[in-house]
């Protein structure tokens, strides 16, 4: 959902590359309807790439036509139950680093970047 928003940074600014990730599994209520709608909102290739880079899952490159409950559970686990506790999100375009601490990404820019 998050992208680099440094002024003028418009190529390679999504998805952010995640480095030094410290992850934690949390429990989130499963809601099939919400999960279906979420899949339509996320950028699928970016999601696949990030899940692979983090060593979490190898998802099909193209979103399957038939989203059964098992698949939805898999996405639910990745998108909602896997929390980045700490790490860095780096923009492949301008190299800006966004830090994640205590599970909270800091997306603030410098005053010269807005």
């Amino acid at each position: 959902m998050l992208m680099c928003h440094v002024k003028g940074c418009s190529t390679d600014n999504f998805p952010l590359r995640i480095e030094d990730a410290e992850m934690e599994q949390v429990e989130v209520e499963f809601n099939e309807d919400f999960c279906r709608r979420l899949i339509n909102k996320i950028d699928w290739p970016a999601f696949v790439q990030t899940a692979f880079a983090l060593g979490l899952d190898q998802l099909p490159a193209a979103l399957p036509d038939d989203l059964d409950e098992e698949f939805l559970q898999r996405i639910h686990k990745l998108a909602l139950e896997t929390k980045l506790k700490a790490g860095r999100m780096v923009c492949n375009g301008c190299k800006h680093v966004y830090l994640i601490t205590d599970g909270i990404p800091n997306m603030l820019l410098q005053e010269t970047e807005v």
Partner: protein
Amino acid sequence: MPKFVICFAQAHLNFRLAELRSLAIIENVTLDFDQKDLLEQSPFLVVGIDTVENAKKLLNRAILIKEIIQLWAADDTLEGILLKAKNLPAEYFAPYRTSSFKFDISVFGSTLAIPDQVEQINRFKFLPLEGKIDLKKPEIVFTVYQDFYANANPKDIPDKPVRLFFGPFLATSNRGLIQTYDLKKRDYLGTTSMDAELSLIMSNIALARPGSFVLDPFVGTGSFLLTSSHFGAFTLGADIDGRQIRGKGNNKNIESNAVQYDLTNRILGTVVCDIAHHPWRETEFWDAIVCDPPYGVRAGAKKIAVNPKSLPKTSVLNPDGTYKLPQTIPYELDDVLTDLLSFAAKYLTPGGRLVYWLPTVTETYDPKDVPRHKRMRMIDNCEQDFGKWARRLIVMEKLQQHEPDLDLDALLVEIEKGIQGVNALDEQDMRVGDDGLVTLIDNPAHAKFRNHYFNIGEGETQ
């Protein structure tokens, strides 16, 4: 449609219709009433609802309603009620013929001594009820509402009720939630935490429900995350000030509140970011945006920008390689609100709601001050009056994709307390931005709100 009588709790009167209509949408209930029947000074409203089951459902998460009864008889005298009750078809009582029961006389705007109540109840003796009277746990309660206030001047209350309603009691609402989320019991608080009752009402009006996705872009200490997630929504918070989200390092923060209320399975997290320069990829993510924008009285609004008053930095990095805090400049309320509205028009799902507070100085407020948007329909504007100043809960709904942009007539519509009024706007006063934002050409009265607020009482109203 079967008729019912809603008895409101008589709190936050201006918000009653907004909540009632939202509840009907949330619970998928067919609700019919004439808004002219709702009187400021009376808690009673006669409504049509498709079924008895749905009438009960409507109160599941109601905050501003106290209870609801089925309407069997309405009259302006007790004698009239008795006569109508006598003539009710036998099948009305058939389901309750052998049930244990009691009578409850609820008087609004006056008092009725116990012996008088008993005397009145005894006059219903003729009803075909054979069950035993049980004052503690009756299977059915028959309610008589007596309203002394309707149409009355509060200083001149009549000695007899002006209208009465009679019927079986159906359900009480969920006002107990106000205690559950009471700020006094909450672990982590800030100076800007929203009181529990209003926070719950806002989550109702935002249609927060299982499966919906709600954002508070000025999350502060997270009041709206709690109440929206309580009603089943998945929530996300953002704030430019990470200190509010994280707390003071004593393990009291938004996350600990989520734990306290057992909502960690729906509160998805928080992000530190500036809504003026935000990182969200442009997608219709949220079903509702609920917030109390910073208006500078208790927490000054800021946005990232070069601050000419600060020394330029020699480096943006700290010695440990992390970024220094960015410089910020004051963020004027009218800019905060127009940015918020443009944001909502882009990021809400079609039909999604924006619910936020607009602070106003009562003397200078003009309905045209509220920023509009061609893709956002005005649903409500409810005032919470503090005398010389007020705040207004503005409720807007994003148009569906197939709907054309709002034309000026629709854009300039005025709504107050859930009731549509006359257009007070003039298109010559308005500026239409490229993205559909419609604002006053002159500054709205809430521009520089902070200055006006602190000048109240010093004779300055400019």
